[in-house]
């Protein structure tokens, strides 16, 4: 017993020491602040090019962002077995060129860049020059020409310069002002050009007004989106600046930055079905710190040095120990009874992905509906595994129904019902109904309430900004949690619930 305690303390102290040493090293050697800054400092934007190589020499050209600063921001290229060069052509973006001989099968090329937010947003407006151009009238059917002319006249009448003209035009094409003419134009271009029609339409309309334009592609700065396709944009010249305008009907929320401009975003020779995706990720720490982390030896590694796509996953994973710790505290120190040991952690992870109130409502709805179905199943005298499987099917259908109904009602949150772990829900329903039968409704409801309370507690701790930041930049602090869990594992004192349970011992 004594020896075991000594061993425990040695392990706990070792964990403590390692965690403190690593974080102090990071703080003072690498300059990563202990607390997150007030605003978003910088972004990591990653472009992923994917295509099927056909066994011939391959050449891939991807337009890359330019910044009007002397030194380029930090960039990284990951592509095994490809040569990489960069070329700059006049009037075009910088171009990254990958080349290789005789590739076949699915190819993935990555380009990553770390940029300060101000710098990224400054790309919306660029000082520059453009050669003067002649007005190019719109072609096509008579009705289209007439509609275009009416639209242009109306916008010209309500504007003073190129900038206000474009604002009027886009408000009619994709914005809040409804216009019969704009609708005719949109329908006809969509039919004629398919993908990319918005860019062509805006370009041609501006050409008719003799405003110089060029194509551009944007990225939405919102790290909750996951993989996103490039947003089509058009840049126009107002005499002093190149300004950018969106040229697509709807997009996800978030600030928009221009990634590149020129004739084409992606040009792949020797491959087919090529696509570009962007992944973006917020850096809450200063840019220099993030960069020095990437250069740091592997044993101080953080999630920050991973590819952006994987970082998003690991950000959630690194929060799971926090949830596990909360569960340990609630079970062994508080004595809360819950359904399933770590079910509340999974639940709290789903709460992280959707706003809390709709999440709670949806959880309650699914549970209630699933439970009533489960009571119906009892009458059919089914065996256990088929019964839980039937519950899984019903939960799936309920999720689809919930998604559809909330979409019809215009509540987009309902569409994200899929974040709930389905199998866990089905087992929760099964356990709850057993409890209901065995020990009555109140016991079952109390345990569900306990699980929900635990999930909420874990969630409220996980969303603290500092906790998120530490999990991302100081994952070694998880060793402190481990030490804490080990210590609680040897705690033999009373649980808070026992103080209530044994109250009748005193005073009779």
């Amino acid at each position, binding site marked *: *017993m004594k020896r075991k305690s000594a061993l425990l303390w040695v392990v706990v102290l070792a964990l403590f020491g390692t965690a403190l040493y690593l974080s102090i090293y990071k703080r003072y050697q690498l300059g990563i602040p202990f607390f997150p800054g007030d605003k978003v400092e910088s972004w990591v934007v990653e472009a992923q090019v994917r295509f099927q190589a056909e066994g011939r020499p391959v050449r891939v050209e991807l337009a890359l962002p330019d910044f009007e600063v002397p030194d380029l921001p930090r960039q990284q290229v990951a592509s095994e077995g490809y040569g990489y060069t960069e070329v700059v052509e006049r009037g075009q973006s910088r171009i990254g060129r990958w080349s290789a001989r005789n590739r076949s099968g699915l190819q993935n090329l990555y380009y990553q860049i770390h940029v300060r937010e101000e710098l990224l947003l400054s790309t919306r407006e660029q000082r520059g020059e453009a050669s003067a151009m002649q007005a190019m009238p719109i072609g096509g059917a008579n009705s289209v020409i007439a509609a275009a002319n009416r639209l242009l006249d109306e916008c010209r009448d309500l504007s003073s310069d190129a900038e206000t003209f474009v604002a009027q035009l886009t408000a009619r094409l994709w914005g809040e002002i409804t216009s019969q003419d704009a609708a005719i134009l949109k329908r006809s271009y969509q039919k004629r050009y398919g993908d990319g029609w918005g860019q062509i339409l805006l370009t041609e309309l501006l050409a008719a007004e003799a405003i110089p334009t060029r194509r551009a592609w944007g990225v939405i700065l919102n790290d909750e989106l996951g993989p996103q396709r490039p947003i089509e944009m058009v840049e126009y010249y107002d005499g002093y600046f190149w300004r950018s305008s969106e040229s697509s009907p709807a997009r996800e929320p978030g600030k928009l930055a221009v990634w590149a401009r020129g004739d084409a975003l992606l040009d792949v020779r020797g491959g087919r079905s090529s696509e570009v995706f962007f992944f973006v990720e917020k850096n809450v720490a200063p840019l220099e710190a993030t960069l020095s982390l990437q250069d740091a030896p592997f044993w101080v590694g953080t999630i920050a040095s991973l590819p952006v796509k994987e970082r998003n996953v690991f950000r959630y994973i690194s929060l799971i120990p926090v949830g596990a710790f909360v569960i340990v505290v609630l079970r*062994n120190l508080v*004595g809360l009874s819950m359904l399933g040991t770590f079910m509340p952690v999974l639940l709290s992870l789903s709460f992280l992905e959707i706003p809390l109130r709709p999440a709670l409502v949806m959880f309650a709805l699914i549970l209630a509906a699933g439970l009533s179905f489960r009571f119906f199943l009892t009458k059919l*005298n089914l*065996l*256990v*595994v088929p019964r839980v499987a039937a519950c899984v099917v019903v939960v799936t259908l309920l999720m689809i129904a919930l998604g559809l109904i909330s979409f019809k009602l215009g509540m987009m949150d309902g569409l994200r019902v899929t974040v709930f772990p389905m199998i866990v829900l089905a087992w929760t329903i099964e356990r709850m109904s*057993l409890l209901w039968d*065995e*020990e*009555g409704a109140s016991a079952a409801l109390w345990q569900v309430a306990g699980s929900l309370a635990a999930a909420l507690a874990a969630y409220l701790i996980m969303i603290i900004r500092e906790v998120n930041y530490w999990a991302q930049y100081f994952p070694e602090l998880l060793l402190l949690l481990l030490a804490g869990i080990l210590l609680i594992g*040897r*705690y*033999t*004192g*009373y*649980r808070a619930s*026992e*103080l*209530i*349970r*044994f*109250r*009748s*011992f*005193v*005073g*009779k």
Partner: protein
Amino acid sequence: MKRRWWHRWLVTPGELSKLGVVGLNARNGRYLLPNNPRRLYRSVDDKVRTKELAFEMGLPTPKLYGTFSSPGELRHIGKLLDEHESFVIKPARGSGGKGVLVVTGRKGDFFLKGSGSSLTLSDVRFHADNILGGLFSLGGRRDVAMVEQFIQCSQDVMGLSYRGAPDIRVVMLHGYPVMAMLRLATKESDGRANLHQGAIGVGIDLETGLSHHAVCHGRPVEIHPDLDCPLIGQQIPQWELVLKLAALCYEMTGLGYLGADIMIGCQTGPMLIEVNARPGLAIQLANAEGLRRRFERVQEEAMRMKGSASVEERIEFSRHVLTPFAKERKEKALSSLGG
């Protein structure tokens, strides 16, 4: 201890510790984990195995009529049940009395439950099927259904229980009986002897086998709420045999910390129903006394004897050394018996 205003809602940890109450963390960390090595659990978690062991040791347990381990075998359940007027079907790996079906008699083709309701053969088969599917076992694992002898309880204790068989739980440490309680069914507990379902826990004095305290839902009671019979001062019949049976469970399983569940049959006498490797803590409430001081005394004694004590010596120690802690309460129980 003086009653304070906060005792309506809670006790402080310091007070609990002074009373010697053992909490769940302490039970697990101090008594369960060090004394019950994992490999020994098999002999008690599988009740068929427990029965075999008890048979080898010559301990009385209800007869095993048969076991069913696959749905195919259940086709023959009718034939087996025909041979017996009354029987009990239960899961081999169940816990907390879950999934126990007690059939006390027949009425034509129907089976009669203890509560008086009747079942058909297909109801019984469905119940057995649920057991096989793991409905009542931990983690939903596949299980074996056992059919065993129904024990008609001795009228001395049966008269205290509302439509359900009472059983005696004896908590043992290192083979020494530490504390005992009688569990009585109530209308609320629906024939089952589970304390958190509203059954009554009655504290039993180790020396005499007299009941001296009783609780329902954690609150002291003196009279059975459904039967109106007094709960204090009742004598458990054949108390020496009960203690001996419990003490032998230590030899049988090797578990340092265990709870023995014993029923008292009217013709058969005390019978071992099952052995629990993780007995709960409600026994403290039923006895209105913490377990810790008794545990400490037993640990000292076990250390002193170095495992050489015989069953009789251990029982002797428990009956005469442990119980004086509850002397005052015992006197109260004796006086209520006299009056």
